[in-house]
Each structure stands twice: as C-alpha cells, then as structure tokens.
C-alpha cells in the first residue's frame, strides 16, 4: 500500500535578549554553572516573575514577519511538573491564549514554491540542565548535577500545522524558519548550543484517507540532517509496524544520531497531567496597536520582499534571487555592493539602464568566487574580509575594462589577503595588472604571433579553425594575460579572415 507522510514541526527558538524572560539575570551561554542564575531563576522563596518586554517585542517581530495575528491580550499559564532542573517545578508558558496566532511560511522545495501554515507561537521559559552522566557529587558520589544558567531563557515555541508531506519539505521549512528568526535578529540560530530546537510530529496514513494516523513526537532533533534522517527512520518504522499488522501508539520518541534510529521515551499513558492554570503572578500580557506599530517600524525588509525585488527590479533569475535572499547578511552585502556601484553622479535613467548588468555581475561573483572562497575558508558572509564597497570598486574596474574578469579573481585573492589594504586599484597598480585595451598594441602582438605560427595560420585559412584558440593563448601569454580578451578575439579573427 502507498502511504502519505504527515509532518508538523514544533520549534523552540531561544530569543536573543540580554536578560531572561522573567528575571534580570544574563542569558549568556557557556558561563560557569549556576553563575547566570539569580534568586528568581533559582525559585527562592518569595521571588516573583516579571515579564521582559524585549522578549515580547521579539515575538511580535516574528508574528509580523509570518503575517500572523498578534493577540491583544494573551495569558501566561503554569505547566506543573516536577523535574530537578525546573526550579519552580512548573514552567511558565502560554497555553490557551498565545501571543501569536496563525501566519504562514513560504519557501522553495527544489524549484517548487510551498506555503505551510502556522498554528501559533507562544512565549515560555526554558528549563535548566541536568547533568546525569557520570556526574560526581561533592562527596565523590555518583550524582546528578544541576546547572540553572539556562533557566528562564526566553523561548518562542513556533508550531506549524501538520501540512508537510515529506522529509525534504520539513527540512526546507525548518531551514526557512531558521534563517527567518536570524534574519529578524530574534534568535542567534545556534543549533549546537540549543538556540533552535525542533520537535517533529510524524504520522503516516494510506493515500486518500482523510483522518490522520497516530503520531509520534520526536524530541530535540538538533540538526537539519538529523531532521531528515529521523523522519525517514520514523516513517519506515511506522509503515513496517502497520504492514506487520501492528498499531502506531502515540508517544514521545528520541532520535539517536549514533544509531540513526528513534526510540520510545514515554508513551501517552504516562503522559503528565500538567494541571495548567493561569499564572496568578503575571497579569495578562496586553499588546497595544502602538506597540505593534513601533515594532513594525523597526522591522528589516523581509526575505520574500527582497527576493521579489531582486527578480523584478534587478532582473535576477529566481533561483539566484532565492540564494541572495537566503540570509540577511548576504542580501545586505549584495545591496551594499549595488549601492556603491550606483554612487557616482549620473541620472536616474542611466542608473536604471545599467542596473541589470551591474546586478548580474555582482550576483555572479557573490554566488561564484566569493561563496567559493568563503566555503573554502569556512566563513560566512558576515565574516568576509572584503568589505562590500571595496568589492564594488573591483567590479568597477571590470565594468570599465581596466581588468578582465579573470584578472579580477587574482585581485580579489590579493584583497582577501589584505594586500595594499585591500584596495583593488592599488593592487592593480602594484601588480601592473591593468588591461591592455590599446588596439594597436594588441595588433602588434597578434602580428608577432601570426608571424611565428605560419603553419597554423595556413591551416586556419584552409578551413581548419581549431588552431584559433592556440593562437589566442599565445597572444595572451605574450600580453601576460593583460590584453583585453574580447579585443584579442575580435582583432585576431579580423586579421585571419582578412586574407
């Protein structure tokens, strides 16, 4: 039988605020255990939570970016369960009325545009960490260590509708959400440090069946690759189970990357009764239209907007536009280059006329030489040592024929290495790389090469044209690569065809 896969994702994004969601202690990662936890985080007697408005602003930002409704009044609830790294033994979360309702995310799976609806996004606090494995207690005994540094770090849990139908779609959704939250500056996106954690709900059903199958929730899958693998494993497991006459049970499962398998953590039967009720320590979270407008004004242009602009205004191919708008840093870098290229005084009509060629050159370079170098050096665009205005200065020399595209790569390498303070003109001058555009000089070089290669010339003229490239090569060699390649081509062809 053929099965349809149904996937929904719940993503915990740690919000990049200076302080915790309900206390004034720092959210810094990686500090000595329990140095970033104050009396509120430790749930000392008499302490009370106070809402961090910066976390709310982050939630509003996400809501606006996905076209969701921002609840004018949302409620914090207590989710009660005992766990040693949860100091109050309840988590403050939003239950019945979350801050963000609805919205959607649009992205490409291959070249297919896909839209997935969101159910909700709600604010909550993170728990601390329990160190169970071989933790030695103060008296040398095998023990459990508790680190409360992470306690109270603000989380925005973003819940999708169960609308994804393949692992690839789920991964594309997760990647899009991941880059969006970083784009918005609300999450650092560091999956290794747990800033972006994905729980995957997976079920299968025979094609054509309307009802959902029973789902399993796979917890804390901490890389995109693992999301794909965990889903693939889980789908296989569920289908095999059904084919063998078994039944999928609703449960929470854990993905083990080493064994590449999911295994049961707890079943629905031992699911907690969390005894949710509104937290009496926190008044309802009221968000005025003014606040929303304020956040709206501080929003950056969104990836979708830029992608459309790149295609429609700059004439960039859709697939390239998608790549250039994949991160805010890349898009900004690209736009900064164009701005620098268009800086010189000229009329608007000329700027518009030249824009597609300039944009195409910049796009080709960013996705070609620049990306290749970044990959080789394991850097991302934000860490690129060549600043956008300097790269634009290099492009100007390509556009005005001072250097060829090929020579420009050498100049770029020198700029990357910081030679001549990364100034392309200085590098070109120092290395004597200026292109020879003087046709008489080029003709002289051509004549010399033709004279030395009478045999090839004769063959060419007899109709065997494959010697042409060899002649170009010799001319460029004589010119130390600096002759304008187009001119060399044109002039050589003219001379050969003359006789």
């Amino acid at each position, binding site marked *: 039988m053929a099965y349809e896969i149904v996937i929904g994702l719940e993503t915990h994004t740690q919000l990049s605020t200076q302080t915790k969601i309900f206390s004034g202690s720092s959210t810094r990662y990686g500090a000595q255990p329990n140095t970033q936890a104050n*009396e509120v985080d*430790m*749930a*000392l*007697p*008499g*302490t*009370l*939570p*106070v*809402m961090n408005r910066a976390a709310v602003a982050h939630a509003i930002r996400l809501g606006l970016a996905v076209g969701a409704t921002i609840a004018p009044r949302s409620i914090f609830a*207590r989710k*009660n369960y*005992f766990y*040693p790294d949860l*100091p*109050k*033994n*309840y988590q403050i979360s939003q239950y019945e009325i979350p801050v963000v309702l609805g919205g959607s995310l649009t992205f490409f799976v291959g070249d297919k545009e896909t839209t997935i609806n969101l159910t909700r996004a709600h604010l909550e606090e993170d728990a601390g960490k329990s160190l169970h494995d071989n933790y030695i207690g103060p008296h040398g005994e095998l023990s*459990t260590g*508790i680190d409360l540094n992470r306690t109270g770090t603000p989380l925005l849990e973003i819940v999708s509708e169960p609308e994804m139908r393949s692992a690839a779609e789920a991964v594309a959704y997760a990647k899009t959400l991941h880059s969006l939250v970083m784009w918005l500056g609300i999450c650092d996106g560091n999956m290794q440090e747990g800033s972006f954690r994905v729980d995957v709900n997976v079920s299968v059903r025979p094609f054509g069946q309307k009802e959902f199958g029973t789902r399993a929730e796979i917890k804390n899958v901490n890389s995109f690759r693992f999301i794909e693998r965990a889903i693939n494993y889980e789908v296989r497991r569920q289908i095999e189970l059904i084919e063998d006459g078994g039944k999928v049970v609703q449960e929470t499962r854990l993905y083990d990357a080493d064994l590449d398998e999911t295994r049961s953590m707890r079943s629905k039967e031992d699911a907690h*009764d969390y*005894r*949710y*009720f509104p937290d*009496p*320590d*926190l*008044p309802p979270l009221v968000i005025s239209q003014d606040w929303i407008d304020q956040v709206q004004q501080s929003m950056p242009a969104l990836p979708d907007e830029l992608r459309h602009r790149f295609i429609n205004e700059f004439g960039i191919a859709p697939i390239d536009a998608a790549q250039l708008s994949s991160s805010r840093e890349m898009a900004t870098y690209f736009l900064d280059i164009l701005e620098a290229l268009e800086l010189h005084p000229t009329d608007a009509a000329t700027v518009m006329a030249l824009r597609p060629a300039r944009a195409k050159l910049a796009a080709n370079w960013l996705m070609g030489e620049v990306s290749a170098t970044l990959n080789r050096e394991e850097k991302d665009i934000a860490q690129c040592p060549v600043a956008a205005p300097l790269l634009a200065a290099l492009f100007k020399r390509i556009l005005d024929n001072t250097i060829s595209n090929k020579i420009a790569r050498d100049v770029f390498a020198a700029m990357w290495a910081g030679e001549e303070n990364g100034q392309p003109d200085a590098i070109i001058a120092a290395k004597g790389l200026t292109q020879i555009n003087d046709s008489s000089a080029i003709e002289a070089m051509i004549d010399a090469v033709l004279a030395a290669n009478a045999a090839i010339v004769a063959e060419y003229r007899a109709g065997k044209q494959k010697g042409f490239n060899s002649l170009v090569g010799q001319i460029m060699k004589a010119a130390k690569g600096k002759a304008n390649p187009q001119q060399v081509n044109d002039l050589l062809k003219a001379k050969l065809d003359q006789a």
Partner: protein
Amino acid sequence: MSAALHGFLTLASLQAALAQGKLSATELAQDCLKQIQAQQGLNAFVHVDADLTLAQARAVDASRAAGRASPLSGVPIAHKDVFVTQGWRSTAGSNMLKDYVSPFDATVVSKLLTAGCVSLGKLNCDEFAMGSGNEHSAFGPAHNPWDHACVPGGSSGGSAAAVAARLVFATTGTDTGGSVRQPAALCGVSGIKPTYGVVSRYGMIAYGSSLDQAGVLAPAAADLVPLLDTISGFDVRDATSAEQCHGVPNAPGRIQSEFDKASAHFYSQASLPLKGLRIGVPTEYFGEGLSPEVGAAIEAALVQFEQLGAQRVSISLPRTRLSIPAYYVIAPAEASSNLSRYDGVRYGHRSDSYTDLANMTGRSRAEGFGTEVKRRILVGTYVLSQGYYDAYYLQAQRLRRMIADDFQAAFTQQCDVIMGPVTPTVAKTIGDNQDDPTADWLADIYTLGLNLAGLPGMSVPCGFGQSAAGKPLPIGLQIIGDYFDEGRLLAVAHQYQLATDWHQRSAGQA
C-alpha cells in the same frame, strides 16, 4: 508594668519620646528583647537574634544623633515569618524551611528597615500561612495572651499575640483569607489588609498568589496609618502590584494623605463626625453560626457608629456562603503549584534517605510539610487535574467574579463602608476541631469574600466575650472599604477609637 511599651498608648506618644531622646531605640529594643524572653510561653516568636536587633537599633540611634531621623525611627516591630529576611531565618512556620536564610529582604521588610523601624525578629504563624489558629506551625502553637489555652487566631497568630502582649509595638502580617483581620480580632488589636496590589508581594513566601496581601497590626487604627503608608507602593519586582490607585500613583504618602483628608472632613462635622457616612450591614453576616456574644458586641459597635452620625443601611451579599468553597478551591490550587518549589533540590529540607530523584523529592516533601499543608496541596492538585478543572477551578473563578460584583453593587448603590463581624465566635481552645479540619474553614466565612474580591478590610477591637475558662476574649469589628479606600477606612476606624477604648486594653488589663 515593666515593659516600656506599656507606657505608650499610641504610636505618636512613642515617636515623641524617641524624638525627644527620653528613650533610645537601643533601650527600647533591649526592653522588648526582655519582654519577649519573659513571655516565651506565648511562643509568639520563632526566631530572635539580639545581635541583629541591637545592631539595627544602634544604627537608628546613630542616625538620629547625626540628625537623620525619620518618623518611624526606633519603632520596635517584628515580621511574620512568611516575609523573607536577611539574617533571621525565614521558615514560613515549616520544617521544610526550618534552617532557611534568605539572601535578600522582602520589599515590606526593607521598606520598614529604611524607615527606621527596628526588627525584633520573626513571628510564629501557621505553616505557609495555611490555618486560622496558628496551630499548624512546625514550631508549635502560639498562644492567645488573653487566655493562653486559646488560639491567637491565624495564620498571623504570632503577629497578633506579640502586639496584644506589647512585646513589640507593631507587626507585619499577611492576609490570604483573613489572616491579618482574624487574629487581630481574636487578640484585640487593630489590623488592616489593604487592597490587593497596594503592597508588594516580593519576598512574601507565596500561599495563594492572587489572594495574598501584606498587612500590619498595631494597637490602634491611627498607628496603622504610617506603617501601612510606608510599606505601600508599586514594586517593579511584583507584576501584580498596582501602579495607580484610581489615578493616584501607588506610593507612600497616598494613604497618609487620604487618611488626613478624611479625618479633616470628620473633624469639621464636630459632634457628629461621621455624618453622611453610610454603613452597609450585610444580613448574611448575622445568620446562623454567629455567637450571641459576638453578635451583641457588633450591634453595640454599630450603635456607637450611629451615635457618631453614621447611617446604617441593610445590604445583601448573597454569595457570602459561597466564598468558602470558592476560596478553598482557588487558594489550594495556587498553593499546590506555589509549594512545588520545595523539593529538596536547591534548599530546604532534604530527606536523609532516598533511592532516586523522584523518591528524594517525594520523601523530602512528605517529611517537610505538615498535615494542613499536605491537605491543601492535595485539594489543589485535585481541582486542577484534567477532568476536574472546569467543575472546580473554573467554577470557583466564576463565583469569585460574582462575589466581587456583589460587593461592587453595594458600594456603588448603597453604602460607603461595610461592617460586620470578623469571626463567628471568640478564640477557640487550642486543639478544638482537630478531628474536623473543615470546621475551621467554615469559620472563615466573613473574611474570605474580600480576599476573593481584592478589597481592603480591617479589624478593630469592639468588645469582649468569654473563654471556656471564663477569661475575657476580644471581639473584632470588621470594616470593609471599596478598592484603594484604605485611608478613609482607617479614618473611620480612628473616629470609632476616639469614642471607645477597647483598643487600649491590653492582655491582662481588661
């Protein structure tokens, strides 16, 4: 009377003596320490530390010598042990926290310290403020100074007993369902619980967060004014504290000025100071269960108010009886969650023997909590459970709204203040009702409603009944005001106390 405090009938006279240098804060503190020692049998205090107290007193004296005295400088007070304090242990009357010392002071504590009050230590109370007789304290019951065989009331039993025995001049208390007003009534002192949100809850060990409110106890209403005024105010660390009270910033000065304004008006009416004041008397507060002696004392007080010019209006608070089930669902529900943090992991009692983490938490809680606390945690856990939430918790919240609406209807249409008894009877004998734990719950009928509504209320002494041993036991009159009406409430009570002397009697002098 050896106790220095017995020489001062009012806070004003004590303040004058301190200001004039007739008495130093240190001398007064030493005298209080002696009295506390002498009256140990009351078990009013759970932690006294002479060094800490005298250090505070000396600092106050030094400040005064340097010309930096404030009105409350040197006034001896003590805190209910649900306020956390640096230095003194903060136990909430529980074995769970019997050795716990807080790294910070509650907002109430630090405000009184800053104002120059000298703390004599921590006062006995029912465990986590759950109880109405101070019998549910891990450190044994506190006793009523009027008859040691009787309860002082609760949960702020130590707070009321200490003022009644003049061990300190004033005390702090907390009131979740009557825990300031009821012991004040049973011990014959004045006590006020302000509107929910007037005083910060930061540093108050939580019982029922939506109901908990700090209050103060002292001999007379006029004494309560500067104390309540000092501890009032918006606190950024308590999201439920009020920023504004009907458009006036919630800050010290507000209650004092409203008291002064109301008093000026009353004085201007000469021999009928309370002319124009409409007193709502709820018929439901005088039904079955009210003892004749309490009923008679309340009636006499109401007659006194009429003689002062006030007008008596019969009103109805039809949902009064329902405040008991509503309260005993909501408060335990919140408590069950609030007390989850006591798990033996980070602080507090940890069992000596356990098998694993869950067992450690289970055993620590089983050993650390007393019976009444366990009872309420169980009730609270039950009413929040899936399948019961709607029937109990949500239903109780609906009742709560209706109860608040009843009060609002009375205040907007019929009366300015509401008066009635605080308790159905005088203080019971310690140990009574042991086999019937809910019997005590039913006695909270007159006090629970205003916690559910968030209204301010107070108790002032208005007469005496008799204990089983034939000793006099005080009776309290409850005065309930509209939201943020603390200043006028205190002014009304003050007019009554200008005409009566019940509040001036202290235990042993009746």
